[in-house]
């Protein structure tokens, strides 16, 4: 029952704001929107506590029969277990903070009912996604969050670029969604069900899978992974996420950093027993994750738009999570999801505060020295940056190093190397962001500088909460090698969710094997060292704004710099080789096939008749008597033939 309330509060908030409260003041919209989320969070917390105090066993809550046809059944049914419970708390908890913050951020808007309505609807859809007990309920949420993302990216729709960015996000996601759908079709074809619990029963407790089924598992997991690539912004479908920054910043924080984009990781973790069975797919997953992590990190190095840096950073961090899933370290992936949700929401909201203070300017080249004007924002951003670059003791350190360690033992040195390189890049670009924004001289114009000031409490209070979280949550999953602290609490917490099927155990020796602590410590040392060096380099280059050395470096590597600034020309490539040919094709089909060929044939038939008629019609004199005479003659002939 509580679970229903968790879901219904955001829906109610969305409906109230969207349908009824269109004329009220924005304060009311804000209060309705935020309190819906807080109420939802309270219910979620209670439901979660109840579940955990009952032993943490998964509960299935049946709603109603939703979709049934032939052998296909997808009841509207929820599952509340350790995984979905945790996700539910992240969504409603961080969601609440962001909703509170949004009231301050959207203060200058005329009417915010639309914004809060979409935002609440998003939370509703996201909850459906994580709580659904079958692939189809998950898919409602899956596409639903895509819709809300589309609406929110295009929130300032009067600028055509925003509308275009929203559309791009929706369409690129849809490509992934088709993969997801195909996964669902395959799943139904070979297993006859799309329910998570039934699938698990079949795989874990059922008879050995047949050959075709085993083969199908590879395809199912691959198809679903395409869906994950779309939603979690992995290569080659990541292109929508940077553009999605066109939306208001709280949206970027909630949707495009903390929650929606992690859906792919959640889905793979939910289906971990299937993915374990498909080592080939897992290899692809790990490679894509590692490649994305590195690829996006390199782009982030040269971006000047503060939100773009964070966007590529998100893509890169998502790559880590996907990489973790690929090497079978689901707990590590989900843990990074959790810590990332905290510090990336913090970073985005902090960036949002900066943007508000800068009168909606986002170019870091015009910032600098904001530390003086915005001390609280600076402090929390510092925590966030340290957390994401993996400064020892903060959240990112624990979660990222866990993934890198698993990448080494599960994926080998190459995968680890890519991950470590990405970590080095991360340290560089995040420090660069911090330096350019908060340190050095202020480079903004006079007018902007006059109005620089710290944001209101409604905006910084959530940041402080997030900063505290970013600092401490890492201790939930301390690796073995660090003495004196409870180890791997999170991994144990999640272990009832992770099932390695007996048939697949041979492919995953590293999950059970023990490794020497010195190796793990050594790798950790390397990555920490790399982080310090790279961050230090960034400090040297950017502590007083872009230093002459930085500009010289840019010049001497202008080729690489150009490629990176243009994001490897991926968008251009897609437009030139996919979108434009399709447009040409579309025009061809319309102007040539439809109008000329098909209508030509149709009209041709008509004209053929006209032609024949034209050839014969000269016999028609138009004289009534002539016609009547012919008729009579005809009758006479017929009668003659018939009678004689």
């Amino acid at each position, binding site marked *: 029952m509580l679970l229903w309330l968790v879901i219904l509060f955001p829906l109610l908030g969305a409906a109230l704001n969207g349908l009824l409260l269109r004329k009220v003041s924005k304060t009311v919209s804000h209060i309705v929107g935020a309190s819906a989320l807080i109420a939802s969070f309270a219910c979620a917390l209670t439901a979660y506590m109840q579940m955990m105090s009952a032993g943490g066993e998964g509960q299935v809550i049946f709603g*109603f029969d939703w979709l049934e046809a032939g052998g296909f059944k997808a009841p509207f049914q929820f599952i509340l277990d350790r995984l979905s419970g945790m996700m539910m708390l992240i969504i409603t908890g961080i969601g609440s903070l962001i909703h509170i913050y949004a009231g301050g951020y959207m203060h200058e808007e005329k009417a915010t009912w639309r914004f809060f309505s979409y935002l609440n609807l998003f939370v509703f859809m996201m909850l459906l996604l994580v709580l659904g007990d079958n692939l189809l309920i998950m*898919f409602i949420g899956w596409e639903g969050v895509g819709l809300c993302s589309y609406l929110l990216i295009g929130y300032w729709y009067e600028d055509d670029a925003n509308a*275009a960015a929203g559309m791009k996000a929706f369409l690129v996601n849809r490509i992934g969604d088709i993969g997801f759908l195909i996964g669902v079709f395959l799943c139904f074809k070979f297993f006859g069900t799309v329910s998570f619990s039934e699938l698990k029963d079949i795989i874990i407790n059922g008879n050995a899978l047949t050959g075709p089924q085993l083969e199908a598992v590879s395809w199912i997991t691959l198809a679903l992974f395409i869906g994950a690539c779309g939603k979690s912004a992995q290569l080659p479908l990541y292109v929508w996420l940077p553009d999605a920054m066109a939306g208001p910043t709280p949206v970027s924080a909630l949707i495009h950093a903390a929650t929606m984009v992690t859906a792919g990781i959640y889905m793979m973790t939910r289906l971990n027993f299937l993915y374990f069975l498909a080592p080939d797919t897992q290899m692809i997953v790990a490679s894509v994750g590692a490649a994305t992590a590195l690829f996006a990190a390199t782009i982030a190095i040269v971006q000047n738009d503060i939100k773009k840096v964070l966007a590529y950073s998100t893509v890169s961090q998502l790559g880590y999570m996907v990489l973790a899933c690929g090497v079978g370290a689901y707990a590590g992936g989900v843990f990074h999801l959790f810590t990332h949700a905290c510090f990336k929401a913090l970073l985005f909201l902090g960036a949002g505060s900066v943007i508000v203070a800068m009168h909606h300017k986002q170019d870091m080249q015009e910032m600098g020295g904001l530390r003086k004007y915005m001390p609280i924002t600076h402090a929390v951003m510092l925590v966030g940056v340290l957390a994401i670059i993996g400064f020892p003791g903060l959240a990112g350190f624990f979660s990222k190093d866990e993934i890198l360690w698993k990448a080494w033992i599960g994926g080998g040195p190459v995968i680890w190397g890519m991950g470590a390189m990405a970590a080095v890049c991360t340290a560089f670009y995040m420090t660069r962001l911090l330096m350019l924004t908060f340190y050095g001289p202020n480079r903004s114009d006079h007018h902007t500088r006059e109005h620089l000031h710290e944001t209101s409490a409604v905006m910084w209070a959530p940041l402080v909460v997030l900063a505290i979280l970013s600092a401490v949550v890492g201790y939930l999953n301390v690796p073995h090698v660090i003495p004196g602290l409870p180890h791997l609490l999170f991994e144990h917490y999640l272990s009832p969710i992770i099932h390695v099927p007996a048939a697949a155990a041979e492919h995953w020796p590293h999950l059970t094997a023990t490794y020497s602590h010195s190796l793990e410590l050594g790798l950790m040392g390397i990555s920490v060292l790399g982080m310090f060096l790279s961050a230090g380099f960034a400090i040297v280059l950017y502590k007083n704004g872009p230093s002459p050395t930085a500009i010289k470096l840019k010049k001497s590597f202008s080729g690489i710099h150009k490629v990176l600034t243009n994001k490897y020309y991926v968008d251009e490539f897609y437009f030139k080789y996919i979108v434009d040919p399709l447009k040409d094709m579309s*025009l061809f089909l*319309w102007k040539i096939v439809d109008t000329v060929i098909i*209508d030509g044939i149709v009209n041709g038939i008509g004209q053929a008749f006209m032609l024949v008629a034209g050839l014969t019609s000269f016999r028609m004199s138009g004289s009534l008597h002539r016609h009547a005479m012919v008729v009579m003659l005809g009758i006479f002939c017929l009668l003659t033939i018939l009678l004689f």
Partner: protein
Amino acid sequence: MDFFNSHVLTLTTFLPLLTAVAIMFTPNLAISRWVAMGGSAVTFLFSLHVWYYFDAQTPGLQFVEEYSWIPSFGIKYIMGVDGLNLLLFILTTFLTPLILLSVWHIEGSKQKAFLSLFMFLECGMLGSLVAFDMVFFYIFWEAMLIPMYFMIGIWGGKNRIDATTKFIIYTVVGSLFMLAAAIVLYLLHYQKTGTYSTNILDLYTTAPLYETQLWLFGAFALAFAIKVPLFPFHTWLPDAHTEAPTAGSVILAGVLLKLGTYGLLRFAIPLFPEAVATYAPIIVSLGVIGIIYGALTAWMQKDAKKLVAYSSVSHLGFVVIGSFALVAGGNQISVEALTGAVYQMINHGISTGALFFLVGIIYERRHTRMLADFGGLAKVMPWFAFMLIIATLSSVGLPGTGGFVGEFLILLGTFQSSPIAGITASLGVLLGAVYMLHLCRKILFGPLDKKENQELQDLSPREFAYLTPLAILAVLMGIYPNLFLDKIRPSVEHLAQNYKQYRLVAAEQPAKDIENVASSEQSAESAGE
């Protein structure tokens, strides 16, 4: 009451005709509007009666009325509903009052004739849905064309004459093939059984030779494929839609096209099952081509109405492939796909109907439908934007709207039947989003830079009144599909699993709550015979 229950289909079908006649004798337009609205509302209530008392447990034919008309030729008057036509029947009666509401404000000396023709059209559509006699079906089928011809030809746009002529000739050519095939079937049935019958339930038992079936199926399928319209017989549709007045477009997309797919399910498949397996790959291929082709063509359209028209080609392609998704070695149709096909027919009627209404609304305000003339309307017409987005979402098959349920089931079933077709058709889902979001973006978003657009009025209460039911239904169909699926399930499963030897009989009990009435009625009838 017993009279009502046993004649409800006849009453529902002919009440619009009666209304059409009554409208001719009304003294002025104001009264004729109310007469039309009253007639169509009562028709809708009658059809709700059918819905309510429809027994969802049996695949049999219900509310059957059977009278002999020309015994020497075996021509009867038979009407009935089962799961295949029930929803379409209700959809027709549901859309008619809404459409009448949408033309409520139109003045002019010819408007009375319009209302009358429209009611006549409703009679034709309802009749061809519930008629179970080949001759009656054919009469209703052709009778629908007459009002449609005039509606496009008199109230249409600039090229209305060309469009309406094209529409009529296309459709009639197909129908004539069907007529010829029906006569052949009729004679074959006579050869086999020694009795003349045009009763479709009897004709189901004919089972002609395989070679004959190939020809007959081809003729029937051609007639219905033109109506659907299936690629490459679709070129009449964009023209007809663009030239037709809004009301005509809505009913054309909402119901008339569905009669094509309904005809495939009711006639072509069960009458000539052996030919189905042979033709299925061709038809599915054409359907898939239609999905992709319609979507791509829609994308580049500059005229909003034409865009929606081409989207129909794409959406109906889904229905067609769902109807021909053979499984179990060709001995069965996939139940999932067939359910989806029947569901998608209704859903397309709702969402595309709404889209045509919405395009009509901005056309009335601006007298243009060119996408380039709009932009940023979300600012001045927020409720219009709301409705357009709901219709769009249903059209692109977003989960939570009816479109998803239909498309998902169709694709699921098609995938079981042929993975290649399933995957290719899935691309249609993507392309569907491409052109619909393109439409939304061009109309709703972007800068509000045209002067004419800055003064536009948002939806009037009357416009709300006819859009809201559609919006609610579009969402309801996605959230609680069982409300509808439960009614059609037995019939669909019966057809899907037994299409090779399809038999349809009148259900024993017409309905659950009227058993006493019905049984006394039955005994009276048998005594009469």
